[in-house]
């Protein structure tokens, strides 16, 4: 009888541990997806956007990376380290020629190689209309490394995967 009691307690502890484990990791995954949603929202643009809003969005994007971020984008002939201030300026300048931008992120694959770091693979589809009227659509696979600083996930490495090489 006593043995059965201990077995039930041990089973209960095991189930609780499994639940805590999954809840913890689901929460971290949710936090990371929320972080990417924040990035997408601040890259998106609606027609007639106020320049003050554009500056505010670029300023918010600065805060999503660590002090500096490694970017590897062979399709755009860019590879290097960028500071948060530089990122803000790049985002501001890259958004400027567009009258509208939408950014949707799909197919998240999230891994936690060690505590406080995460690796995320995803597909990003960017659609936009230039002020000249031309429609642009780009689809990319992204590999990102994130670091958790003060309970907030920050991007420290972004690779635009070269799926097609001209």
């Amino acid at each position, binding site marked *: 009888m006593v043995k059965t009691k201990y077995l039930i307690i041990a089973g209960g502890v095991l189930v609780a541990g499994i639940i805590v484990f999954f809840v913890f990791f689901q929460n971290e995954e949710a936090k990371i997806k929320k972080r990417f949603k924040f990035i997408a929202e601040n890259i998106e643009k609606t027609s007639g956007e106020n320049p003050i809003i554009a500056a505010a969005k670029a300023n918010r994007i600065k805060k999503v990376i660590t002090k500096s971020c490694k970017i590897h984008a062979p399709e755009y002939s860019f590879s290097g380290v960028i500071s948060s201030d530089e990122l803000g300026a790049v985002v501001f300048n890259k958004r400027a020629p567009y009258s509208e931008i939408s950014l949707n992120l*799909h*197919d*998240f*694959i999230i891994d936690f190689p060690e505590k406080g770091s995460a690796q995320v*693979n*995803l*597909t990003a*589809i960017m*659609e936009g209309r230039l002020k000249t009227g031309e429609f*642009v*659509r*780009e*689809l*990319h*696979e*992204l590999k990102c490394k994130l670091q958790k600083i003060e309970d907030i996930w920050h991007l420290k490495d972004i690779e635009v*995967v070269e*799926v*097609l*090489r*001209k």
Partner: protein
Amino acid sequence: MNGDFNFCFRLRYSFSKPERHDVVTIRLAGEKLMLLKRVVALEGDFVEFQNGILFVNKKKIDEQYVRYPSDWNLPPRKVDKGHVYVVGDNRSVPIDVHQFGQTPIDRIIGVPLW
């Protein structure tokens, strides 16, 4: 990549490899969003564009499936082993905007079903 919803036949390349002129679906991070492109050259082939005309191994290719002609120019390049060269049928956009090039065969998931 046209923003449309398509079904994909995944068994198409279970026992064979993609061939020239096949329209294929190409995987990115997952399988919800994929690229839809046409295979124009296979491994070892030389590909080039001259004023919008495709040449494979210096032979002019008659591409009746191309929706809008282009004025693309691309110097010859060899397709690596284990890769195929894919291009979209809609070539109305400038060459630097259009997403095309060689891709590993293992990224090809299947063919679209209409």
